[in-house]
């Protein structure tokens, strides 16, 4: 529900970076979205369609790189992909693990510009 705010801060950051690099147009914005980030990729995409027009990033391609969740089981000392995105039951010993090693990402990764 706050994807618009996330998109706005990403765009602001992208435009500032592009400007200080002397670019006149942003062609591609790459954002990494973890499965546990609380951000919905489609809502984020929609938010960008609303805020890009009229900026140096108008018409830019939004590339969203999804990141799967990875949890860690301290008993087995092993990483594992949770069965679904959220239930961190170790597939080896069945213990519930709250240690998330990957999946909370919400990063502005890369810009392509002219």
């Amino acid at each position: 529900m706050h994807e618009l705010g996330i998109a706005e801060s990403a765009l602001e950051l992208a435009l500032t970076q592009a400007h200080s690099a002397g670019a006149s147009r942003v062609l591609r914005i790459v954002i990494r979205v973890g499965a546990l980030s609380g951000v919905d990729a489609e809502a984020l995409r929609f938010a960008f369609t609303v805020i890009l027009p009229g900026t140096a990033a108008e018409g830019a391609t939004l590339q969203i790189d999804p990141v799967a969740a990875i949890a860690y089981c301290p008993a087995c000392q092993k990483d594992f992909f949770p069965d679904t995105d959220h239930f961190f039951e170790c597939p080896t010993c069945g213990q519930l693990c709250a240690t998330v090693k990957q999946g909370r990402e919400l990063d502005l990764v890369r810009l392509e510009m002219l």
Partner: protein
Amino acid sequence: MPNKKPERSRAGAPARSGVILVDVRDPADTPPTPPGDPLPGTVRTIDLQVRLLDENDRRAAENRTFLQQRGIRALNFVSSPGAGKTTLLERTLDALAGEVRCAVLVGDLETDNDARRLRREGLPVAQITTGGTCHLDASMVARGLAALSLGEVRLLFVENVGNLVCPASFDLGENRRITLLSCTEGEDKPLKYPPIFTSAHAVIVNKIDVAAVLGFDRAVALTNIRRVAPQAEIFELSARTGEGFDRWLAYLRALL
């Protein structure tokens, strides 16, 4: 060598090709960006690798330091609208009155109804009206803290905007995040909205007094909470009747 580009010389001296070129272009003039698809080889890439919540996390860390320096422990209460956050706080404040000095920040989209419900003698309370934003963020809390007189305060209760999705992503600088689930919402809420539970230090199952009437299966609810949030301490209570409140108050006292 007809294919070799002539070399330029600003001073008008002959370049190695033997052709004299006088460059009078202003170096500040960059060619206008051509419309349409970019020409090959003109696209530049910069790697940023910036976390989008960095700014919020930085401010949250400032809040945490600010509170720690004053000896204040902060709790962030999150739940869907109507789960009973305000009622829980009302009873908690009354139970701790005269024993622990508390302060309250309340976030809502509009109105100061909740803050007015929480007004107590000598209790610093401030309403943060977000005007449509679906969560509190660390800078809103910093402004709220600045508006309160925090002398002698030991516990700060932050009542987040009623929303089971967005507040999960925003660290406010709290010491404990408390997620409420009420019996009216059904046993499967933790499975439907995991992030707000996975990030909780404690989960309160509220309205336990009407659980039986609603056909709410407490055992199933507890199993679901433990599946999603094995790290969380679980409290079953009724903020309306006070059932199960002793353990909750002991948890708060142990924070001090």
